[in-house]
Structures are given as C-alpha cells and as structure tokens.
C-alpha cells in the first residue's frame, strides 16, 4: 500500500512495465525499474524524478489508452513528481505553497516588487529615484550595496538551506537498495546527463509533445533557459568578485564580463522560456499534469521576467527609468530566490539527485556483475 493514490497508480504501471520492458532503451526510468521487483514510495518518487517527460514511452506503448491496461507513464510520473516536491518540502509547513503554486508565486512576486518600489520611494527622495545616475556605484545611490548584499545573501542562503533539507529527505527516502552513499563518479556522470539533457530525447529521435512526431524543440528551449540562467548566475557571481576583490563597482561597461555574461544569459532566458511556454500550451493534455500548469507557468514566467527586467535595466540604465527598473528587477529576483524551494525550480535539483542515484545504481550493478 502506498501513501497516495498517484503512487498506487505508479506502482500498478511499474508492475505492467516491468513485465514488458520494451521501453528500457528509451531512458533511465525503465532500467532503474528493472533493478526492482517491488516498489516503495521512495522508489516511485525516485522513478518519477528520473523521468524527463519526453513522452516516448507513451507514444511507443501498445497499452496506452484507449487500451484497457491504460498505461500512461509520463502523466502518472508527472503528477507523482509534483506531489513529491510538496512531500519533501522544508519546512513541512510550507509544502502547501505547492497546492496553488501559480497563485502563490504570483502573489509573492507582486509583493516583493511592491516592497522594493515602496522601499526605494521611502528611502530616496524623488530626485534620486527618478534621477539619472551613471558610472560606478550608480545603483547604490538607490540602495546601499551592503543592504542589497545582505538582503539577497540572506534570501539566497535561506533558499539553499530549504533546498538542502528537501533533498536530504528525498535522498534518504530513495536510499534502498544501494544505500545513502554517493561517489564522485556518480556525481560527475549525473552532471553530464543533466547538462546535456540526455534523457530528454525519446531514446534518440527527440521528444513527443503535441503529436506522435518526435522533435528536439523542448530540449533546445530548455538548454537556452538553463544555460541562460547559468550565465546570469555567473554574471552575478563575477560581479560580486569584482566588487569585493577588485573594488570595482557596478554598473559595468557593456564589454565587461558581468555584462557580457548577463546579456547572453538574459537572451537565453528571454527566448528559452517563451519557447518552453509555447511547447507547454501545445502539449497533448494526455501527457501533462493539468493541475500543475500554474506551477510550471509561474516558474517560466519568473525566469522570463528576471531576464526581461534585467535587459531593460541594461538598456535604460542611463536614463531616469533606472530607479524604478532597478526596483522592479530586484523585486523579481528576490521573489525568484525566496520561492525557489517552493516551486518548479526544485525539479532540476530533484532530477539531478535522481540521476546521481541512477549513476550510482548502474555503477554498483556493473561492479556486482564484474565480481
């Protein structure tokens, strides 16, 4: 017996799939399934997070609906996956944020933006807020650097703490049968698998989205989004180092590393989310977890807004719009940070952890076979 209805269904499907195994070459889920004969809640949450929702096993399945076996692995695992985010959320009291995630994220983002705008207005007089500031330290005319660093540092650290606690619960839950250790090789293998989205390709031909024709679009848009995000994060990190190590203050010239990284990342974060969103709206409802549309859209929208406000700030930073735009951008980024552990962002973390587990299992299995 399982804790939830969706895990009951996932168990039923894995029993069907484990006696068929035709899909074992498509991704990591089915080989991982074959290493088990029975499935605990943790096992199913592990498989759910290992699934990249490429849809191939649905299109290739002779038992998918309308067949009476009603095998729909992508949708079932998508629901189980979303429920697992709530189940492992830390602190538990906040897991409810996942229930109406789109609304919650939108509300938090709006409040955050409003707080920054009011804060800027309260602490600065009109001349400063709508003034034109240029050259090093221009941003800090509106908000002292230390205040900015303390606020965002705290938000970031909190997000990391909450994510670590969630991942810890997940990792412990999926510990069987190879235990709770991880090794460098598995961590590295999982990094490669995640970095190239190895399992978002339908076993080689591409994913399935709106019909039975494979396409690489989702993978490409996801790469743009993820690497866009990574570049933006790198831009912020480089800027932080500039500030503290080289005593060089933002804003930087357009050719300087933080701006180049931020601009490239920003472009990825503009195009990628639009693409992902349009793929999401086109997606065959039979593959999707309709209830989590809000969560997915909220995360994509937050990434898009981060990029959009950031790029706008870059383009208009020499004008009087800089003050309000800075407030807007900081508001969005702050909301992105504090909601990270309670939104779709966690999918990347849990999936990475599932990939580590999978790499580890493969390693142990090959090792076992060699003995």
């Amino acid at each position: 017996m399982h804790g939830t209805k969706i895990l009951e269904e996932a168990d039923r499907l894995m029993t069907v799939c484990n006696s068929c195994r035709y899909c074992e070459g498509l991704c990591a889920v089915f080989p991982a399934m074959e290493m088990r004969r029975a499935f605990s809640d943790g096992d199913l949450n592990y498989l759910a997070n290992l699934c990249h929702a490429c849809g191939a096993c649905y299109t290739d399945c002779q038992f998918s609906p309308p067949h009476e076996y009603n095998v729909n692995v992508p949708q079932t695992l998508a629901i189980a996956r979303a429920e697992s985010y709530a189940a492992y959320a830390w602190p538990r009291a906040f897991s409810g944020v996942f229930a109406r995630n789109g609304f919650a994220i939108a509300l938090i983002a709006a409040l955050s933006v409003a707080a920054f705008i009011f804060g800027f207005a309260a602490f600065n007089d009109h001349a400063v807020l709508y003034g034109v500031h240029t050259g090093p330290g221009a941003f800090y005319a509106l908000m002292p650097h230390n205040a900015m660093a303390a606020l965002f540092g705290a938000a970031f650290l909190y997000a990391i703490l909450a994510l670590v606690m969630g991942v810890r619960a997940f990792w412990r839950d999926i510990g069987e049968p190879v235990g709770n250790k991880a090794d460098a090789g598995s961590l590295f293998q999982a990094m490669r698998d995640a970095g190239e989205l190895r399992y978002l390709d339908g076993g080689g031909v591409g994913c399935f989205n709106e019909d039975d024709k494979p396409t690489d679009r989702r993978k490409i848009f996801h790469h743009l989004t993820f690497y866009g995000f990574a570049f933006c994060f790198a831009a912020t990190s480089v800027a932080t180092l500039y500030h503290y190590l080289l005593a060089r203050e933002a804003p930087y010239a357009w050719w300087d590393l933080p701006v180049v990284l931020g601009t490239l990342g920003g472009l990825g974060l503009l195009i990628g989310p639009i693409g992902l969103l349009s793929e999401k709206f086109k997606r065959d409802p039979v593959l999707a977890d309709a209830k989590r549309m809000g969560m997915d859209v909220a995360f994509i929208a937050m990434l898009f807004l981060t990029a959009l406000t950031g790029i706008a700030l870059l383009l208009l930073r020499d004008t009087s719009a800089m003050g309000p735009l800075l407030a807007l951008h900081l508001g969005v980024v702050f909301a992105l940070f504090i909601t990270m552990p309670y939104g779709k962002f966690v999918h990347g973390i849990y999936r990475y952890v599932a990939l580590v587990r999978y790499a580890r299992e493969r390693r142990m299995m090959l090792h076992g076979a060699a003995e």
Partner: protein
Amino acid sequence: MVDLGQKFDVLVIGGGNAALCAAISARRSGASVLVLEGAPKFYRGGNTRHTRNMRCAHDAATDILTGPYTEQEFWDDLLRLTGGQTDEELAKHMIRESKDILGWVVEQGVRWQPSLGGTLSLGRTNSFFLGGGRAMLNALYLTAEQIGVEIAYDAEVTDLKIQDGMFLSATLKRPIGGATEIRASALVAAAGGFEANIEWLKQYWGDAADNFLIRGTPYNRGSILKLLLDKGVQEVGDPTQCHAVAIDARAPKFDGGIITRHDSVVFGIVVNKHAERFYDEGEDIWPKRYAIWGRLVAAQPDQIAYIIFDSSVLTSFMPTLFPPIAAGSIAELAGKFELDAAALEKTVADFNAAVRPGTFDHTILDDCRTEGLTPPKTHWARRIETPPYYAYPVRPGITFTYLGTRVNREARMLMKDGKPSANMFAAGEIMAGNVLGKGYAAGIGMTIGSVFGRIAGREAAQNARN
C-alpha cells in the same frame, strides 16, 4: 487525403510491419501507393504492435548482436522447429534476404537496441526494436507518410474483385472521401491471419476455441485471407497450426500482449485440471520451447493448465503482470483452483520423489532431472517443497495462424491451378504458412513480414509499371 477515386499503382491491404515495408518499398520503387488499414489509428499494425524483435541472419557480431548467426544456422533452426514442414527454396531465399533487412529497416527509421532485460538468450540471434514493436511501427508510418504513401484508417475491405487471377478493385465497408471502390494496378495483401475470428477457429478446433485467448487485437479476422482463398488463390498450411504460447488465464480475451506470458514453466511443474502432469517441463532451453506450450495446453481438457512452483524460485524469472496465487500448502493451493487436493498432492509428491540430485543452472541443459517418472522432467528438476507454494493458471494464447496464400519467390500469389497471379502479392502472416508449416522461433514472424513485405512492394511496383 488524396482522391481515393484515382487508380493507384499499388494497393496495400493491412497495416502492420509487412504492409508498411511493402508500401515503403513500392513507393521507393516509384509507385503511387495506398494503404488500407482496417483498424482505427491507435490499433494500427496488427500483431506488430506487440512484437519486440526480428530474427535475421548475420555473419558477424554487431553493436546490438552478440555474435554471428549464419544462414546455415538459421536454416537448421527453421528445419528443426518446423519438422521439415517448410518450403525450402522460399525459406532459404527469406533467410538470405534477412541479412540485408537488418540495415534496410534502419534506413526506414527503425532503431535497434541490444536484447531486452530478461531475454539474454536471444542476444545473438535476434535484433530488438528500441521502444518495442509500436515504436517500430510508428517509425515505419512516419517514413511512409514522409515519402508520400497514402494511408487510410478504419478502412475495412469487404470484397475484392478478382478476374482470372487478376486483381481489379477492393470494396470498402464505409466510403472514405466519397470512394467505396478502390482500383489499383497491383495488390499487396498483408492483412494477417484469422486468429481473432473465433468462429473460423471453431471450424477446426471445435468448442475448444472458446477457451483460447487472442494475444493481438480483435481486428485480425482474416477477412482478406478468406476472400482470396474463396476467389481462386491457392492455400498453404494446416489450418490448425499457429503460433500459440501459454499465457495467463486471467488475461483479457484480446490484445493482452506480451505481458501476459509466463517464463516460469522450467522452474516448476505444469498440471492440467485433473492435477496431472502432461509434458516434460525441462525439455529444452526455455525460448526454444516457449512456443510449444500453447498447443500443449490447448490439447488439455478445458484448455487450462497450472504452473506450480515454490517460494525458492519466486524471483528466478521476470516479474509478471498477474501475481501468482499463493498458498501455505499444496492442498490449499489446489483448493484455490478447484483442483482435486489429493491428486495434486500425489502429483507433487511423486515428482519430488523422482527428482535426482544435480547442479542447477537454468542457462544450460543441466543435470537436474527426474528418474522413473512419466512424463519425465529432464532438466532443471528440483523438489517443490518450500512453502508458500505458488501457481499461475494458463490458457492457450494464440498469436497468429499459419493458414495462408501460397506465394513464390517474388511474393506473388499462386492460383489454385498453380499459375502465378497477374498482379497479386502477399506478405507477412497471411503467407507465413509457406515458410512455417508448424512451430515457432522468436522473431521469425517479423522476418517474414519485413523480407516478404519489401519484396512484395518492389515486385508490385514493377508489376504496375509493366
């Protein structure tokens, strides 16, 4: 959809592997091609939906095949499993062509993978479809659409106009795009056997056919085969011969597919409704004997049997869709299936007493056997003595029938008078009986489909041009 009122070069009736290989091959030979699939789109492809591999000859290991499987070895296997009931010329032609098919289907978008978990014994001889048979079908359909093959679903054909061995037109049950009469210069019949037609099966099997389970879709009714045979095409094969395996008795009547099968026969004993054993469960390595158990069970009273084993082997074979029925004692187990408890206890006791000591190894013909028991269990015999005890109820699961249309090397149908048809070709299960008089070996149905499909399409296109 194009105008179906036009005359096509090649009409393909059927929608599985053989039909699609024929359609693609005809189209690539320059013909205009229409495929009429009787089933709705989801159920397209007949038995191909449920397949997973193909047996092709090859002279060396590849990245998906662990070693060579020569033409000679393939032929030896075919000769043995059919007991010589095969057309040697045609079979050898097929085996030779199968070598080329491995690469040809890849060119049509099909992808291979090494043998699936739980099927390692086929890793040398059989190539597995990445994603299974439906993935293979999807790839063929995609290719066919891309190169301009026209495809109609729910396109049931109710009549064929044939004059002096020459196909003229096919009649649709329901008009498609206003057309009910489809004309073509050549016909490829690739519409399978009649395994889902219980009434037809009853003509040969009597009421026993009511207890058969059909592993594929209910659309494999053999209506095209019947029309062809009624209109002068020469028949081939014994109508009672088919590919049948023992599948779980709890499986649905139709389309239960691969997951209802049982691999556990070699790990226990098999008894009938009188709780008596009836065949050597350890005769040969399992995949080689997999295909005889359908007929064995079909020959038992009420077409039912029970695989009995104990907890010591519960995890020795692949997990099953339907869990085994468990009981604390043999008598209790008998009670769960309304078997005579005393009779089952005696059968198990007699078996246990006859088991000789040996070293168990299910991957070879080991030395664990019975002595002084009829029928014997010649390998892998170990006592059934560790409770809980388990059983799977099994029935005959019919995959496809062998009665078919006779063809020559060009896949061209022969008429009753022995003359080749002017423009009719056949491929796949509808003509499998030419090669398979009886018996079965994993993946051979797909070989017949792809090889003769490709030939039929090419020849039909050629025929249409002349």
